[in-house]
């Protein structure tokens, strides 16, 4: 992309125009994601910048929408709260007796809508990821063996949850699961999310296995290690970055999924995206922006984790970029 010293004026203009165009496209990509953070500190219940915000007046900003995440839906949000009370509550809740004191934090944990949505999201995401990662890793190992029969057909079948329109998947699951009594239950949503997450695990683990040196397994076997031991001691540590990033993909798929939840979940299984969906449709308040900001921060953390995993994986397999 260096401009040669003999470039003509037209070439120079084109060169800088190209940079400008790319800059605008990057702006298009990133602005919407960054704009929600300042908007979420709006003191007024609007989705846009107020006069005060633009002139940086202190009163125009507030954290009331972040507070709203915690208290929305609580029976009595006026109860006293402090960090000391929080630690006390946490200590009591984590103690073997499980007797949480009555008070602000118990009320929040039990009743606040967003807190409940967060609990549901993590609960469903955890089990969906567990199923998807375990089954997907096994299948990827099988699929990358040269002697696997019907490899192409099975691979396209297993990847298909990624391709089939979500509405069709969700409608089919809704129709079938309601006949077998899985509709409006946690297992139903977990199964659906696990099925949607497996293609990601297969793709990432298969990609890691491409660079895997099979003679290492044979070397282990020749020294007397059984199949289980070679798997856990040799293969697993080497493909672990792929497995973890596949698991992260599966988790984020579940964490972000809303169509299957719309079809399969009852009101008590609402996840964060489901809560946002109804928030956008019904009463649009900056609380959604506050939640969105938190989710952006989470995805930045995930992005960093993925990048570190990728580098570690390449180092382990001896690939230099």
């Amino acid at each position, binding site marked *: 992309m260096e401009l040669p010293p003999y470039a003509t004026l037209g070439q120079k203009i084109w060169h800088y125009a190209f940079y400008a165009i790319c800059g605008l496209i990057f702006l298009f990509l990133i602005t919407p994601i960054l704009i929600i953070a300042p908007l979420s500190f709006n003191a007024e219940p609007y989705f*846009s910048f107020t006069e005060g915000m633009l002139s940086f007046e202190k009163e125009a900003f507030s954290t009331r929408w972040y507070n709203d995440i915690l208290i929305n839906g609580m029976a009595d949000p006026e109860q006293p709260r402090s960090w000391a009370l929080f630690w006390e509550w946490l200590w009591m809740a984590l103690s073997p007796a499980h007797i949480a004191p009555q008070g602000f934090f118990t009320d929040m944990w039990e009743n606040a809508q967003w807190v409940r949505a967060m609990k549901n999201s993590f609960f469903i995401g955890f089990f969906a990821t567990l199923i998807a990662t375990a089954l997907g890793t096994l299948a990827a190992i*099988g699929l990358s063996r040269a*002697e696997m029969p019907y490899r192409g057909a099975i691979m396209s079948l297993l990847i298909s949850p990624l391709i089939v329109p979500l509405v069709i998947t969700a409608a089919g699951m809704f129709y079938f699961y309601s006949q077998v009594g899985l509709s409006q239950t946690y297992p139903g949503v977990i199964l*659906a999310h696990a099925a949607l997450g497996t293609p990601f695990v297969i793709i990432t683990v298969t990609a890691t296995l491409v660079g895997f040196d099979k003679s290492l397994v044979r070397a282990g076997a020749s020294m007397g290690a059984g199949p289980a031991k070679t798997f856990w001691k040799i293969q697993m540590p080497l493909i672990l970055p792929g497995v973890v990033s596949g698991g992260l993909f599966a988790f984020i798929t579940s964490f972000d999924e809303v169509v299957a939840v719309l079809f399969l979940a009852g009101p008590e299984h609402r996840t964060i995206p489901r809560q946002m969906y109804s928030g956008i449709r019904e009463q649009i308040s900056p609380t959604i922006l506050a939640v969105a900001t938190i989710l952006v921060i989470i995805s930045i953390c995930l992005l960093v984790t993925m990048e570190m995993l990728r580098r570690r994986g390449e180092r382990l397999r001896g690939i230099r970029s």
Partner: protein
Amino acid sequence: MTDATATHGPDGLLLAADGTPLKTKLRESMRASRMRAFGLVLPLLLFVMASFIIPIMMLLWTGVYNATYAVNMPASAPLMQAWDGSSEPTEAMAEAMVADLIAARKAKTIGKVASRVNRELSGTRSLFTKTARRAAKMEAPFMATLVDRDKDWADVETWRAIKTAATSLTPAYYAAAVDAKYTATGDFEMQGEERQIHLKLFWKTIWVSGAVMFACLFLGYPVAYLLAHLPAKRANLLMILVLLPFWTSLLVRTTAWIAMLQSQGVLNDIFVWIGITGDDQRFSLIYNMTGTLIAMTHILLPFMILPIYSVMRAIPPSHVRAAKSLGATNSTAFWRVYFPATIPGIGAGGLLVFILSIGYYITPALVGGQDGQLISNFIAYHMQKSLNWSLAAALGGILLAIVLILYWLYDRIVGIDNMKLG
């Protein structure tokens, strides 16, 4: 050195230590390792079958098979199926009908049956519920009594609608999904131009997917080019700007676009501030087709950039240099040498974006307003609101067929193995 294990059998075949021919032994061992590989895949295969493939198959089956009438009206259903649809309805049909109506009212399934027949001929819902209420008191001759109660029973069209509803295995829903009507005599008629909602919707969906694909291509290609030609350090930094939207929740991005595009939103504020438009005539950029297009392009752009980028990275820079040293101008070198080499990436990205956007649901539902709704929204509507599951299944079946053809193309052109993430 003599080999103790590999001896020759009577017919000259190599034998293993236990006396079986080596060929058989090898085949056995190959089969065992094939079974082991298959055994590793089997749990997931069964899981995906049970939780994903079978549910979709079952749904698609309801698109051609609806037994609501046959199950709830057992006496009249076989008679209606046997009727030719053009001759005068018989007394036996009327008698069976009255008996079924009494039974269905008692079993409280009359509502289901009435709405099923109503889908074939509107207005028959009230005819059924009304007649069922009085059916218990009806006496022979039933046909005359029925007509006496409501003269719609004298209309042969009513009976034709019932015949269509009584046939469980029927192409009627697929016909309805492409705006045709399957008549009682077994013919297909196209609906009038103004009633062709589904075909219009399919075309609109394909048009939107194509528009999003091209928008992604025009925006994604320069960015991929820039990323592929910058020094690795700066490219990695800019890559974050592509990957962050990719990792951000779909709903977060949709929310962000609402904040950007709504009439009191950031973009309109900027337009007013610059003076492009007046405060009282802000652009309506959201809750219509424009909003759907902008938000979908933003959401799917990374899916276009990443495959093109990985193809561009693999093109040796010497090719363009060689073209230039042979006298090609910059634009010739680009269009004749560089661009053709990036076509696999364009194909991969374009197909992926098209496949994903053709089934898009959430974004159109949230920012599409009235005219930004796509075929997926209609399927969801029939699944959840109108409860016409058979029609939803037929629409879904057609959509699925389109997607599977594109998926097959993707596999042929790109190969599923080459699908990469991040």
